[in-house]
């Protein structure tokens, strides 16, 4: 069922990234590459360094060593606003300090495209409304962001990132807090965007079944190191996953979709059943 979207040029790449907080290293020698239209999933147990990796890729954190390149140019050569026109990030937790409306938040995605004193133009509004529509948010446009549920807020910030019209989107747990229908919709919308605009996606994902279903490549991390890197078929094996997650993992094929299906903790579950 997988459609390979990634046929384009390299959008984002990283070589031998080492980074951390204070003295404590969190990433140790991570390399990756994602092409236009591709989705790279970053998976691994809690504390593996997935969010830190995204922060280095978004240049929130400067790596100790190694280099990130966006569209063939080192990340540090970009001026902030120029970078914001090419690279959008959605953090795991999203909030705003004041009662901005949903539309105002999504319009903030247009900020890197606007001149210093310009208000948003009609074109910016159209882009924002298209982003709202894409995530089914138009009816919420006037609502203050504080009044929304966690899942709705997640979609608002995804829409904001899309309104940036980025070439690469870095998404930290885009499917967290969402119910089944919205998880499916998010991945469908991301697939559309990848196909339509050649947008590359790097997403941290806890749900390995979603990784198997939607990612073109997987980076499996543990303790800040790469444990496996490649296609879902090559990376998501029972052997790799059992080692990384330190629990018995069953890997099979879903008869309905043909995609890899992963069940954690099967041995224990089977024993309890017996």
């Amino acid at each position: 069922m997988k459609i390979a979207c990634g046929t384009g040029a390299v959008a984002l790449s990283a070589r031998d990234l080492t980074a951390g907080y204070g003295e404590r290293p969190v990433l140790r020698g991570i390399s990756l590459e994602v092409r236009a239209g591709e989705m790279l999933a970053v998976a691994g147990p809690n504390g593996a360094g997935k969010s830190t990796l995204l922060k280095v890729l978004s240049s929130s954190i400067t790596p100790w060593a190694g280099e990130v390149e966006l569209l063939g140019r080192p990340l540090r050569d970009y001026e902030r606003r120029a970078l914001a026109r090419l690279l959008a990030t959605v953090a795991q937790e999203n909030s705003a300090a004041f009662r901005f409306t949903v539309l105002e938040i999504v319009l903030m995605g247009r900020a890197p495209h606007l001149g210093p004193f310009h208000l948003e133009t009609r074109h910016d509004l159209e882009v924002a409304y298209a982003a709202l529509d894409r995530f089914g948010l138009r009816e919420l446009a006037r609502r203050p962001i504080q009044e929304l549920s966690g899942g709705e807020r997640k979609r608002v910030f995804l829409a904001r990132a899309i309104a940036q019209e980025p070439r690469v989107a870095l998404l930290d747990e885009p499917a967290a807090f969402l119910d089944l229908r919205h998880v499916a919709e998010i991945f469908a919308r991301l697939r559309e965007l990848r196909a339509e605009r050649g947008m590359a996606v790097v997403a941290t994902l806890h749900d390995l079944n979603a990784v198997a279903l939607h990612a073109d490549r997987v980076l499996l991390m543990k303790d800040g190191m790469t444990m496996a890197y490649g296609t879902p078929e090559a990376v998501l094996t029972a052997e790799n996953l059992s080692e990384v997650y330190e629990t018995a993992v069953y890997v099979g094929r879903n008869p309905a979709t043909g995609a890899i299906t992963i069940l954690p903790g099967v041995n224990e579950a089977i024993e309890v059943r017996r």
Partner: protein
Amino acid sequence: MSRTAIVRQGEREGVAPTSAPGPHELEGAHLTRARMVAVLLTLAIVTLAVAAAAAAFGSVHISLVRAIMEAESPDHAILFGARLPRILMGAIVGAVLAAVGAALQALVRNPLAEGGILGISGGGAFGAIVALVVFSHIGGMEAAVPISAFAASLLSTVAVYRLAQVEGRLEPFTLLLVGVIFNAFWGAAIMLVNSVVNFYYTHSIIFWLMGSFEAPTWGETAMVATAGATGFAILIAHGRDLNLLSLGDDEAAELGVEVDRVRRTIFAVTSVMIGAAVSVSGIISFVGLIVPHMVRLALGADHRLLIPASILGGAAFTMAADLAARVVIAPSELPVGAITALCGGPFFIYVLRREGRKSLAL
């Protein structure tokens, strides 16, 4: 069902924007130039009306017509010699305090931030008092008082900001606590100065603690107007950056804001503005809290409108408070700082109760 329909429509039309949003659908949900002009014009008219009322009423009854027409009348002397300078000073200082409050609240993502609560005004008052005591003997007091107030405000801001950082992140609650502690500390330092200096200074020290717009000189007015106008221009120019900073430092940076540069600029500008205001009028508390909050409730959170609207609202509010200070127990006077604090204390509690949990737990 209708939401699904909208999504379906989005699918059909692909990237191209779906039905262009009609003007009515957008009204009030985001900032337009027309809305900005209408709101600011209305507020300007209200502010002028308050100024006119403040000119017409006071401890003595005067006729505005006679004051303007007859240059030799006592009404003329009262209006142009006493009331107008005072009204002007109140308007400028109120505008400064409200604009600074709105900007600081965005910068630290905390609706309770304000020059007074963060200890910046207290630092400025301490600087002003020390300069007053030191330079009244050796001369140059007129220049030394505001400069010393700026310096102490800036120092206080930097110290509070540094101490509120936990592992490189600004903690909103810690910031508020550190600010409150600094505020109390500066109050104590001022009392200490008061107890060791000549009795002759006590009146001036009380003036700075209570806040007053009484009898400003034109030099003072010009100084605070210049600092204010420069500051307003810089804060208004950063309206969009302040919007983006409301989402968080990393988020703002990812949307193209040079976070460190913007933060340094805003802290420096607001410290100078507060220093200037405190050096001429003492500590007028809570204006920077009440006005931006009311404006936000009425007009929304967009700082491109919030900052200029707070400037006008701050001017109107402070002129009204000063009018009350002059007439409530006429012919005696209340300190205007006491009036704003009497309104502001309960208001602070109200905001804390209403917004505390949801806005401070970032």
